[in-house]
């Protein structure tokens, strides 16, 4: 198994973890972390699969580079929105999640 494929498989695991977290966790800050983990998983899959035969492929690398910068911009925007929600409602959770949130905001 090549190094690329190994990391691509790790990327799949990270993607799954991020996806589960994004959907299941009520706290918005956790959702943002989960979103970033999901993104990192996707990036690893892209680059890892791109070079699973051992050669370096610049195209997915360039795409991931763009993706990282977009991800940080999205994170900053999401954090700002979450803060706004905190100011408005006093909690960092979406209204529909509030009913079943009990443990997560330590």
């Amino acid at each position, binding site marked *: 198994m090549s*190094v690329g494929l190994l990391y691509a498989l*790790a990327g799949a695991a990270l993607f799954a973890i991020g996806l589960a977290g994004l959907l299941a966790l009520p706290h918005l*800050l*956790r959702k943002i972390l989960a979103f970033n983990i999901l993104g*990192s998983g996707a990036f*690893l899959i892209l680059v890892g699969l791109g070079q699973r035969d051992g050669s370096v492929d610049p195209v997915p690398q360039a795409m991931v580079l763009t993706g990282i910068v977009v991800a940080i911009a999205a994170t*900053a925007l999401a954090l700002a929105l*979450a803060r706004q929600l905190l100011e408005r409602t006093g909690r960092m959770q979406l209204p529909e999640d509030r009913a079943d949130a009990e443990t997560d905001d330590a």
Partner: protein
Amino acid sequence: MSAALAFDLLIIAALVWSAARALTVADLFRGVVLFIVFGLLMALAWARLGAPDIALAEAAIGAGLTGALLLDAVGHLRAKREPEA
């Protein structure tokens, strides 16, 4: 087992572990610290994948911006809470 394979497996195990823990630990601040660690590990992973461009970007953004943004958010959240015991 070659040193390279050992390095890759360690990195991957640490990546998956820190990602899972960052989302599941009870304390939010601990989650953020684990996420910062996750970002630094990602930079090493990119280096091992032979993608120094991405390693550079991840190092710059992971160390410089993500950490600052998230720590700021945690501080904001704490300040909004009742003073802790």
